[in-house]
């Protein structure tokens, strides 16, 4: 039986290295990416069985990159890794049809199990996440999320990372005016008055 083909994405090279060494005995690591946009294009070329991806990545975060990967090829299984404790992220990951969700400080063995489960069509959730989601149920201060469109999230991440509107436009292949429009819409929708507030929102949402 041929080994499952896995594509990795994480912005920390040392971690990518460690993941590759961890997985190589059992799986075929077909490639890696250090940002979400490269991930989407590599996934499109390589058509892996499983993508193991970090949520916090520059240019395009893992949640949004994962959504794009799934949209192009729904058979691809997504396993999310994160160090971010925000329980909302777990909810977001499952909304994007994650096959697995693990905190980065989970034992390495958990990831291997998660990939095996994903290949069997099952979902694996790190036991630590159950705790995290339970704490969310008892946290009344967290408001319901306001939804931004996927495109708005893309624009928001790039602007919050410090890209100019012109740079963002060229990365997304749209005009600067379109970026301006999206930015305006985002600020109105979220009732943000300044650029700093925009960046702060992005930090809180884990986009940067």
């Amino acid at each position, binding site marked *: 039986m041929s080994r499952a083909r896995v594509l990795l994405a994480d912005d920390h090279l040392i971690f990518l290295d460690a993941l590759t060494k961890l997985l190589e005995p059992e799986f075929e690591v077909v490639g890696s990416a250090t940002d979400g946009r490269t991930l989407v294009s590599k996934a499109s070329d390589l058509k892996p069985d499983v993508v193991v991806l970090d949520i916090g990545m520059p240019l395009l975060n893992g949640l949004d990159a994962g959504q794009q990967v799934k949209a192009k090829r729904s058979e691809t299984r997504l396993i999310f890794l994160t160090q971010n404790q*925000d329980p909302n992220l777990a909810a977001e990951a499952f909304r994007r049809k994650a096959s697995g969700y693990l905190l980065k400080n989970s034992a390495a063995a958990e990831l291997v199990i998660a990939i095996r489960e994903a290949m069997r069509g099952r979902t694996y959730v790190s036991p630590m996440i159950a705790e995290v989601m339970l704490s969310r149920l008892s946290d009344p201060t967290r408001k319901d999320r306001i939804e931004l469109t996927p495109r708005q999230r893309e624009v928001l991440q790039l602007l919050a990372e410090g890209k100019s509107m012109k740079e963002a436009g060229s990365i997304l292949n749209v005009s600067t005016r379109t970026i301006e429009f999206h930015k305006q819409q985002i600020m109105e929708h979220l009732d943000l008055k300044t650029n700093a507030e925009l960046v702060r929102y992005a930090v809180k*949402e884990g986009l940067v």
Partner: protein
Amino acid sequence: MFRTDTGETPSRIRFSFPLIYLLMKGRSFPRPSILLADDHRATRVAVASFLEASYNVVGAVGDGLSLVEAIEKLSPDVAVVDISMPRMTGLQAALQMREMKSKTRVVFLTLQGNPEFLHAAMAAGALGYVLKYRLDSDLPLAIEAALAGQRFVSPPLSDLEF
């Protein structure tokens, strides 16, 4: 919110709200000084602008070594520090600061919710531990607590403290 331009508490406040005056008396006038340390520019921008309304943000650095240098030079009241930073982590920097007998209170602002990091942070002498996604609600509370010499840990973690 009670301060005039010179940073003095108006006398009507001093005498009509003695408890508040007493609480504020222990703070340094002008506004408390805060130094930020985070290797993500976006976080530095977001936190600085957020805090500027109530505090004097004296600087923002991007790694642990620069943090230690800035602490020595500026001696801020509070340092808001990320854990994972290049050259020296926030935890290592906190330990250094303690060795230097620094008076600066340390509040960690981090993605890391692992109890081990929390314990390490407290063991390194930090007073505050705030999860980044709870920046709005928790950071001001943690800073005020730290200024009063008290601990604050973001509620989702607070029963893991001991």
